[in-house]
């Protein structure tokens, strides 16, 4: 029976692969595929939900499914089912099915019909992996799938400027969340001396024993988890991406930002509740930030004059309340609240175009010119100050630029003196020297040996920053992004002995994807002329196949969790000791920026308005 759980993962997976195989023109086949599989999934989910609800069955966990072992390191996939999963499955399967049926007609004749259904199925796969996952590693796979499908749906209208810009913005924030996740996994690994299932977390005695001597470690893990939950659920200070994600077709916005995707952060907190249950400070932090989010987003929602941003902020305010409920330990209330809010916002977004005829009619009959709101009773100066702040979203959107994106750019720009040739010459020669030392480590003094991992890891960061800030050569930027992983491997090799098997696991995928990706860029340059990174080229418009292949390469190089390099990444982290926070931070940072640099190359070369004006292209501002 425990393996039977896998059916919930296998169905969307199967449907995703079938969807990919169906030709673009076959609208009916594509939509029937989603309709059928999501329908079956719905029926099974509801049956299982009620079986679980009324049968008072205990939680179940599958055996370890796929295991990768290397000298004390154990990586495995595992799935489980309990009350939290049950509620998320209940809501998710209903909404996904309804939105699938809705979209069958709604997207009829839309260019990208297939892309849409592929992405929805991919998302649903990720969603199920997350809610069934019973350890952090498994959950991270689903987590990343949701992230990438979110990116793809925001940029669904990939030949307009704003969707692409917003998609990249959202991706970059998601990467911040990923740092949290990776760091949490790293630390948890050391804490529990291996991977641990969520079910084991529930076992108080084991947990307390581990945490007793490591109070700060516990808080560190909790905060890291919390950061990724905040990002995914658009909590303060990460609120502003959520309304900006409403760029795709309305049903996709409804299911992602109205309901399922934004509530995944809540899920993560519910899931890890036993872990931080006894950390009072963490609970206070969650509660306070939930309150701040609710207050701020309610204010912002009140001044929104566009329907989708209003629903988005109103939904965020409710999620803030759900975080408070979670912090207070009201699990059932939080689950109930999540379900109600998800249904309500999905529906409100789906009927949002109706608001014109409905409200105009209401205005026609019930208009009163001076309707007072509560703010009219505030002192004028306070009222005005608040109004302006809410209109400017408390500067949250600009803050993201000023404290995250721009500093990275600025540092990267400092490296402009490194030209193509200089850069390659420098990096390759230093790398070779590094390799030589690696095989003759006995010549190094102990102190040198101690600092080398930091040095190489820092060079890795420099490499990706250069790649990220590169304005001209796409292929150079690409090469640098690929090289970063080799730096990481080198740095870690000096830290702890790395087996060949481990290194290959990590680097093989990256290398292959890197070479194919490079070839793609080369070919596009030959065919279309320019692939400079200082503007959007929109080559996906004419060359969708190249865009797809390159996207896959991007996933490969950035260590996306369905590739082997992901296991490798995890493995690499296991070689960073618990006390080496800086090394872990540095490595995490370089992996994060690496992802950013890669997605930027993809966006600049393949997305955005097509550079030649032969085709109808929208204004930049629309």
């Amino acid at each position: 029976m425990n393996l039977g759980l896998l059916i919930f993962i296998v169905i969307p997976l199967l449907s995703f692969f079938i969807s990919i195989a169906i030709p673009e023109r076959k609208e009916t086949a594509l939509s029937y595929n989603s309709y059928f599989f999501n329908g079956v999934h719905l029926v099974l989910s509801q049956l299982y939900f009620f079986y679980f609800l009324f049968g008072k069955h205990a939680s179940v966990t599958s055996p370890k499914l796929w295991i990768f072992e290397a000298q004390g390191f154990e990586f495995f996939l595992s799935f489980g089912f309990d009350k939290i999963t049950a509620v998320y499955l209940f809501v998710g399967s209903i909404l996904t099915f309804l939105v699938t049926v809705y979209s069958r007609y709604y997207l009829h004749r839309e260019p990208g019909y297939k892309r849409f259904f592929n992405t929805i199925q991919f998302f649903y796969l990720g969603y199920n992996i997350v809610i069934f996952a019973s350890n952090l590693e498994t959950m991270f796979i689903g987590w990343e799938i949701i992230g990438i499908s979110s990116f793809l749906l925001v940029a669904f209208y990939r030949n307009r400027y704003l969707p692409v810009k917003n998609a990249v913005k959202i991706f970059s924030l998601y990467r911040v969340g990923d740092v949290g996740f990776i760091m949490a996994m790293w630390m948890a690994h050391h804490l529990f001396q291996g991977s641990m299932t969520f079910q084991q977390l529930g076992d108080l005695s084991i947990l307390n024993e581990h945490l007793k001597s490591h109070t700060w470690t516990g808080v560190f893990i909790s905060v890291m988890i919390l950061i990724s939950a905040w990002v995914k659920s658009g909590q303060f200070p990460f609120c502003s991406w959520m309304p900006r994600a409403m760029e795709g077709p309305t049903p996709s916005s409804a299911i992602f930002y109205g309901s399922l995707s934004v509530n995944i952060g809540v899920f993560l907190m519910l899931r890890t509740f036993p872990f931080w249950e006894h950390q009072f400070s963490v609970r206070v932090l969650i509660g306070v930030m939930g309150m701040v989010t609710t207050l701020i987003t309610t204010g912002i929602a009140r001044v929104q004059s566009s329907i989708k941003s209003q629903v988005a902020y109103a939904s965020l305010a409710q999620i803030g309340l759900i975080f408070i409920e979670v912090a207070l330990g009201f699990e059932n209330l939080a689950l109930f609240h999540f379900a109600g809010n998800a249904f309500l916002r999905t529906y409100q977004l789906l009927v949002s175009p109706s608001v014109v005829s409905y409200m105009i009619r209401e205005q026609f009959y019930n208009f009163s010119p001076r309707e007072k709101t509560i703010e009219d009773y505030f002192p004028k100066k306070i009222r005005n100050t608040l109004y302006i702040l809410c209109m400017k979203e408390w500067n949250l959107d600009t803050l993201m630029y000023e404290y995250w994106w721009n500093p990275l750019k600025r540092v990267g720009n400092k490296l402009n003196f490194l030209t193509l040739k200089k850069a390659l010459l420098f990096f390759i020669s230093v790398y070779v020297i590094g390799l030589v030392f690696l095989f003759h480590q006995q010549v190094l003094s102990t102190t040198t040996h101690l600092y080398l991992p930091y040095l190489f890891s820092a060079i890795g960061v420099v490499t990706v920053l250069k790649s990220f800030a590169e304005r001209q050569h796409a292929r150079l930027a690409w090469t640098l992004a690929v090289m970063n992983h080799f730096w990481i491997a080198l740095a870690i090799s000096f830290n702890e002995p790395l087996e060949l098997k481990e290194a290959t696991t990590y680097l093989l995928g990256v290398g292959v994807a890197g070479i194919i990706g490079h070839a793609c860029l080369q070919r596009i340059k030959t065919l279309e002329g320019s692939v400079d990174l200082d503007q959007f080229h929109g080559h996906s418009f004419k060359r969708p196949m190249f865009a797809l292949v390159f996207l896959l390469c991007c996933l490969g190089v950035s260590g996306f969790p369905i590739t082997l390099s992901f296991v490798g990444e995890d493995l690499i982290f296991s070689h960073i000791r618990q006390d080496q926070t800086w090394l872990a931070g540095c490595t995490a940072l370089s992996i994060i920026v690496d992802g950013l640099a890669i997605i930027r190359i993809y966006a600049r070369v393949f997305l955005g308005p097509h550079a030649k004006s032969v085709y109808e292209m929208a204004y930049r501002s629309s």
Partner: protein
Amino acid sequence: MSNSFDESRAISRLKHILPTQSPLKDFIHHNTLHGFQEKKFLAGIREASQILGYKVSLRLDMYRDLFGDGKISEKILDRVLTETKGLDQLSVWKKKLIQAQYNQHLPPRIGSLRAAWKRDYGVDLDSLVHPILFRILCSFLDQGIAIWGFPDKDLGFLQAIRELERNSHSSFFRTKRAKQLLISSRVSIKELLRILVGEDESLYEHYLFDQQFAHQGWSGMVSVVEDHPITLLDTRKISLRELILFELLLEIDALDYRFKGGWKPLSESLTHRPQALFSDIEFTELHEVLSLWQVAYEWSYYDPVLKGIGAAIDLPKKSRDVTFQAFFCIDDRECSFRRHIETLDSRCETLGTPGFFGMEFFFQPQGGKFYSKLCPAPVTPKHLVREYESCKELERDLHFTKHSHNFFTGWLISQTLGFWSAFKLFLNIFKPSLSPATASSFRHMDTTASLTIENKNPNNRENGMQIGFSIDEMADRLEALFKSTGLIDPFAKLVYFFGHGSTSTNNPHYAAYDCGACGGRAGSVNARVAAYAANHPQVRELLAKRGLPIPEEAKFVGGLHDTTRDEVIFFDEDLLSPTQASLHSANKKIFDAALSLNAKERARRFPTVNIHQPAEKIHEQVRIRSVSLFEPRPELNHASNALCIIGRRALTKHLFLDRRAFLNSFDYRIDPDGKYLLNILKAATNVCGGINLEYFFSRVDVQKLGAGSKLPHNVMGLFGVANGIDGDLRPGLPRQMIEIHDPIRLMMVVEHLPEIVLSTIRKDADTYQWFIKEWINLVAIHPETHQMFLFKEGDFTEYQPITEHLSFITDMDQFIESSTENLPICLLKSA
């Protein structure tokens, strides 16, 4: 262009070419490129293209594909080339059209000056200014989405912002200078431009054009609201000048913030001067090739139509025993409905006229706080019709309540109503039905309520309008209606006035689906008012004196045709005598059958409907579409429109026109000197020409001139749509409305003597401009000889169709099921 900057001239030039689309509730079709209408069509659109970067025709490869598919006829192409280039150049040009390679990438002039910010200063001004600017504009104009509205909005746009900035600890600006300039309140556009652009005033106008056309949607909306404040129910004081001032201030702010140490005005670091915006346009060979293709494309369609009209058979003398007569709107969507009715009842007579039936007035439904204008856009009515004794209540849907957006009520609502939403969504997807969210034409007026139609006391006025029409006024309007449509005698026992409207759900563009002649609303009230007037004994007395005797047993009945659902309702049926009632119920059967057939004919365009089913079954599916949340194409509106035929029904009764024609009834014998014809043409050029060109341009450039796909649309302040939350407004038609449209100019066919047509169109300068500048093609048909004359360069010359013969339709059902594409012009078997 002189070198000094004249603010008011610059603004009026801007307003002239900015989009003029009204807020969504008043969506009325117009020529998207109205700013270029004083030029000849082909030259004007090229100019628009080079200056503003619009696509104004199909792409070269698309024309070539059409030629390959036989949709552009080779014979026509040869004729067009021979006529324009001469026989000796035919093969040279044909080769150019079919094979030659051209560089089609022509960067537009707009934006070339302001591009220097990015190129030379490395600052992306638009992305720094637009989001906050759009947000402030939208909040200021908002009609009721925001819960907390713009403070002090009654002061007007700039003054309200000034007030906000003066009394606040926070600011929209990030630096001091711009804020102080705003508060000082005496700044002019010129001063701000001096800061931004520098001393060179000759660049100022170009700069403003660049700036405003970077968000033409918002600028256009501001310009419309400035000129017609009442187009917003909750009115606002705003002007384009204020918008420009504020935007210039935001730009100064962004630059001050970015370059903390100061920056040089744009003109001082300009390396080369951009080409002046409105300097002469260079016409390339590519332009000529595209123009020739366009003309050949159009005539490939027109020619068979003219062949068909030329084959009209003189109708037998009107018979005395007409079963009924029915007036429909000129609208192209009524074209097939009329054909089906006539097929089912060969003794009936149908007529077309603008769907307000000559009755122009404001309407106030019971409980309404405002008036709705029910007549064509240019007319300003002086009469008011009120609804009373209505028992209709406003239906509500809690999902639209704003309480769900506050945190405590939101907390309650999400945990209660939230679960109801899931259920509602389920119902809506599997069993769609009419809901409060649906925009339904039948809700426009309560059929059981009474209307104040007749005015017995001229002093009975409200807000400068007379309540109802006097007997004289009713008679005048009916006389004009009957004489212009040629219905003077005999009147049948039952005469119907069918207004039309539509039903759609989840559709911000719902107003575009209703009757354009009724100001973008359903025509039910107009139909009912017209029927009331025509049934009035005193009105009939007056009409009889004017030579329009209406027999006592004749009765007029108002009705409404819902073009989306293909349903009709009738008003005041209780006033019919028993004999009339039984005739009426016999007629209703005909209408019902015709409606199903019409629904089936429309459904051939919907690939999601299986067309090989009985008409009634398809009709049911068509009805469901209109109330389905997930259906972006409840109907296809005016898509594929291409003709406007003004003349007797005999001209077209034998033809299958595939719902592509606006039909206006007119009898030259009643109007020998073109008095009524002039009024018909005035209305038809504006309404039909506007519709046709809006479809044309939205089709050729759905991104810049149309609204793009409607799937990601976000409703802004209830007056417009945008993509995402901080995009520009998207005027024009969404892709779902125009994708099956063929971009062809309207051809107007008038049945009258060419010399009368000529003298008539010359009487009105605006009307004449449509034809002489070739934004509409005009053909006159000699009523007796059926010779055809094409209007060209101010004169009529005889036209001979090339098409040799048209085929007959033997089986209508089979014919309709044969294709989802446009069908060729064919002859009907019965003719």
